[in-house]
């Protein structure tokens, strides 16, 4: 048995391979918690073995996607990363903590701040040209100060983040999404029209760890 963990900047996703239990905890509340295998931004000294996030993402997506040609995008609190497979082989990947930085973190912060019901917000008609969460936040508050409604500004802000992530992965017509954004209905609807977004959930990287664990055994 093993405890596998994806230590994200804000949230940690944990899987106990024996009981099958999955849980999500705030990373800041897990100071003394240690896993057997781990991945993620906050992994240092928290596991017997760490696995690079791109390996975990690629591995995990292969367990969930029955296709040899696809792109999987993970939007985390602090960064965005993707892996693209062509004919079953890795063809491209990237991991950006600069452009795309703090995307998830900023969005979560803003949504909590305004306490809005995401399901009720319509996708933005405009797109804020933003390359990272912090620069986007400045534009968001400027738009609200200029008279735009909070909902409309949030929608344009979210569309800006989604567009930025979409350009980062090379604008495929269809892609898989990993991470907490899979549970954000506004984000899912904020990609360009006609683009198919297929959410894989928050445990993709943990499933990638499970592959490494099985190989270890």
């Amino acid at each position: 048995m093993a405890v596998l963990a994806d230590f994200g900047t804000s949230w940690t996703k944990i899987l106990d391979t024996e009981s099958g239990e999955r849980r999500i905890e705030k990373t800041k509340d897990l100071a003394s918690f240690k896993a057997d295998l781990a991945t993620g931004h906050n992994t240092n000294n928290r596991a017997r073995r760490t696995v690079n996030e791109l390996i975990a993402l690629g591995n995990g997506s292969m367990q969930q996607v029955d296709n040899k040609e696809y792109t999987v995008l993970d939007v985390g609190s602090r960064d965005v990363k993707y892996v693209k497979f062509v004919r079953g082989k890795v063809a491209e990947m990237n991991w950006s903590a600069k452009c795309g930085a703090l995307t998830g973190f900023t969005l979560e912060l803003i949504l909590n701040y305004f306490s809005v019901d995401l399901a009720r917000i319509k996708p933005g008609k405009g797109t804020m040209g933003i390359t990272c969460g912090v620069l986007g936040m400045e534009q968001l508050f400027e738009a609200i100060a200029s008279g735009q409604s909070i909902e409309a500004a949030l929608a344009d802000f979210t569309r800006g983040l989604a567009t930025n992530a979409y350009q980062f992965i090379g604008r495929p017509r269809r892609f898989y999404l990993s991470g907490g954004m899979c549970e954000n209905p506004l984000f899912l609807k904020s990609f360009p029209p006609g683009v198919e977004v297929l959410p894989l959930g928050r445990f993709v990287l943990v499933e990638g760890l499970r592959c490494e664990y099985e190989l270890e055994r």
Partner: protein
Amino acid sequence: MIGNREHKGGKAKKLVGFIGCPPQAVMARFRDAELVDLDNRQPGVSPTEAKDMLPVNACAIIQRILANTLALKPEVIIFDDGYSKCDNARFLGNLIEDRVPDVRLIRTQNDSKNSAGTPICDSHLLLAEKVSLILDDIISPVDKSILRPCPDPPAAFWGVPGADEAVYELFPPGTQLLGWLRCFENRTPADLELECYVPPGVPTIFFAQTFCSKNILAKHLARKYNGLYVDSDGVLTRSERAQIEAFLHFRKRGH
């Protein structure tokens, strides 16, 4: 003392820098001098002054050449400024001539097609050892008879010498060297055909310094040969490291 280095118990040797891979005939004229490769990291040299003189989109190697020139002040610089190097370096030559007038710049172009062979690139050695040997070989010839070839390389590295040597540690022993480094060992630095040579089926990282014009070739060849294109600006980031590790990991497992 400008342009010389003191040696214990003897007179100072003339300090001669070189940039790129100048023709052997020109290099031979300075065999009695202390030769310094200005493209490579020299101990104790700070890039600060060079960075101030250059636009922000100058690559790490161009910054390093200028930093080394300003710090070491060689008496002579043998400058390979043809197709074998790059436009940025050629223009840097003008800057050096104006800002460091005491340095005598010998502009050369190395269009040699005389192949010296690539036994180091194709050997079983670690990547860092290969690059180091290739760069040393131009100053004092290395004994290549002891090298064991690696007929079935587990990976390949295409590119120029990395500004951050840590990149080499990510590759398994026997990783084949391709691109300009291969041309360098072959003493045909302007040989575009050899630079574009990529053996089929070998997992290859196509590496270029950010802002270097070779990025065009690196990205194109990565697509053409189903390799991974990585560009890096100076120090290797966690992201770049992770991409290389993941690519080699997946390819090893057939993905």
